[in-house]
């Protein structure tokens, strides 16, 4: 959802007027006397953030320790970068990183292309009632939890589930083990993620298409452009700034393969292709007690993500004048 923040299609790039408009700064004493209610109103949020967001960041020191719960962070031995070195020694963790990259990349690419395509198709529906009904239905899965969706998938995709039943009766195929076959697990995960989220991702594109000036189409029409040419030369170029912003910002989720989904769908049969960084952290640390190592894997992931997010925001700002706040 974070991608919807800000205003990606700001038309003119302001010449940094903020600096000029800013009023002269009051000295702190005077400012506090005048604006103390505002400081007070920020306080609850600040307290929450310091404890529950910055507090765990302090706990990142565990990544450099052989952390033992009974010794605590002050008593555990410091082992430098050993935990990080182990990430690439263990076959399981390197595999998890590879799986994460593959699954996340496929999700990002398909999750950008399909919603664009669907938004264009949907905007060709002229019957308002039908259009609204379709929108209502396709947005719905986004709001279901992955537990619910996984529950339905386990039933429908099971060996004796609806899909296999259907395939067997129509094509006479043998039952396919979608969630237990390492080769099929990744496609199953990627497609089900698409099913759940394409509708919601489509909203921004639909809004962009609605905002296109109709006179462009009229002009194209007069010049004898077919509908396909109109889509190619009017609709798509108009959507381009939005597409660039969303594609750029998705760079930050390149190591995020979707913990909620994988955790609820995977099982030991598909660890080789389906185990991702987040599920691996959970198993190696909370189930096997390797807290320091788990923290290191987590930090490895969030550190790289941070760098990517910062880069992507800079690019998005340069290309489309996009700002978070």
């Amino acid at each position, binding site marked *: 959802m*974070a991608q*919807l*923040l*800000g*205003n990606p299609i700001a038309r003119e790039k302001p010449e940094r007027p903020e600096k000029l408009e800013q*009023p002269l700064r009051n000295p*702190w004493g005077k400012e506090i006397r005048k*604006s103390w*209610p*505002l*400081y007070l109103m*920020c306080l*609850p949020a*600040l307290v*929450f953030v310091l404890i*529950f*967001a*910055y*507090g*765990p*960041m*302090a706990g990142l020191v*565990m990544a450099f320790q052989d952390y033992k719960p009974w010794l605590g*962070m002050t008593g555990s031995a410091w082992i430098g970068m050993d935990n990080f070195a182990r990430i690439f020694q263990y076959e399981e963790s390197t595999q998890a990183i590879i799986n994460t990259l593959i699954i996340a990349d496929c999700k990002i690419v398909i999750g950008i292309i399909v919603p664009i395509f669907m938004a264009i198709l949907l905007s*060709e*529906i002229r019957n308002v009632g*039908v259009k609204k009904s*379709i929108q209502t239905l*396709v947005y*719905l899965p986004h709001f279901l*939890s992955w*537990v619910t969706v996984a*529950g*339905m998938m*386990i*039933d*429908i995709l099971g060996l004796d*589930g*609806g899909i296999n039943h259907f395939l067997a009766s129509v094509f006479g195929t043998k*039952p396919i083990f979608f969630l237990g076959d390492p080769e099929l697990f990744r496609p199953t995960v990627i497609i089900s993620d698409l*099913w759940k989220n394409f509708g919601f991702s489509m*909203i921004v594109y639909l*809004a962009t298409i609605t905002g296109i000036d109709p006179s462009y189409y009229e002009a194209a*029409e007069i010049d004898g452009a077919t509908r396909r040419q109109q889509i190619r030369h009017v609709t798509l170029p108009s959507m381009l700034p939005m597409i660039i912003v969303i594609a750029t910002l998705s760079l*930050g989720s390149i190591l995020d393969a979707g913990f*909620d989904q994988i955790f609820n769908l995977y*099982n030991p049969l598909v660890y080789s292709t389906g185990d991702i960084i987040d599920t691996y*952290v*959970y198993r190696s*640390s*909370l189930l096997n007690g390797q807290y320091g190592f*788990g*923290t290191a894997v*987590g930090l490895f*992931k*969030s550190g790289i993500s*941070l760098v990517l*997010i*910062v880069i992507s925001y800079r690019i998005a700002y340069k290309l489309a004048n996009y700002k978070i*706040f």
Partner: protein
Amino acid sequence: MYHKTGGYKVFAVFNYIFLILVALSCFLPLLHLLAQSFSSKSAVNGNLVTFWPVEFNTDSYRKTFSNSNFTGSMLISVTRTVLGTAISMFVITTAGYALSKEFRGRNALMWIFVFTMLFSGGLIPSYILITTLGLKDTLWSLVLPGAFGAYNLILIMNFFKTIPKALEEAAFIDGASFFGIFRKIYLPLSLPGLATVGLFIMVGHWNSWFDGILYMSDTNKYPLASFLQTVVVQSNAQSMALSASEAAALSEKSLKAAQIFISTLPIILVYPFLQRYFVKGIVLGAVKE
């Protein structure tokens, strides 16, 4: 006049059919679930149910509601949703109002808040923190850690920024304080925006399952989503080791279907309200100054 060409008409027909099929695919799994939940056990296990109940009965629902584990975790879910949403809204609206104004240090504060969207301590440090604070196994572990959300803060802040400054200036002249203006002008005027964000937070709480599994060592303290996760997903992972027929005999699909459906019902019920606002709300929240 592209609408009149033969080629476009053919495309339009296929387009309608395709999109209606896609839309149905988003809805039919839920209908299938509902049909299963009202069908007899043997009919469900024999794969006779598609989208209409076979041998209609309400046994699964009676069983579900007489299961004290289920009703207990439902109560926990309701409590955490109400309490969590109230705390979140308080924290976010107050800060959102303040940050929609100009004051010294505002940008520094804003960066402190926004940085939490870019980086986090991760799973293990959060777990250790909650344990150290003594919040483990209490309801607070489900309510407090997520109470502040930078994304929601920015949305609300942008809503507040759309309220005309003249209103505030007039109120200042009449002797109103920042608090009075916040309560009497900003909150009432941004009610649609607040409702949207509030609903999102509620849905988030209701659907949240991992914190329950992480922080509650006793399954009796699980919220509904976590309870459902153990019933639906974990039991399945265990039965993966068995043969298909054994697994089918063991699992009570109609009961599971009823439990999933009841847990999802609140989301489906608020969905129309959610949908009315979220498209508009997100677009509106994105407009600045």
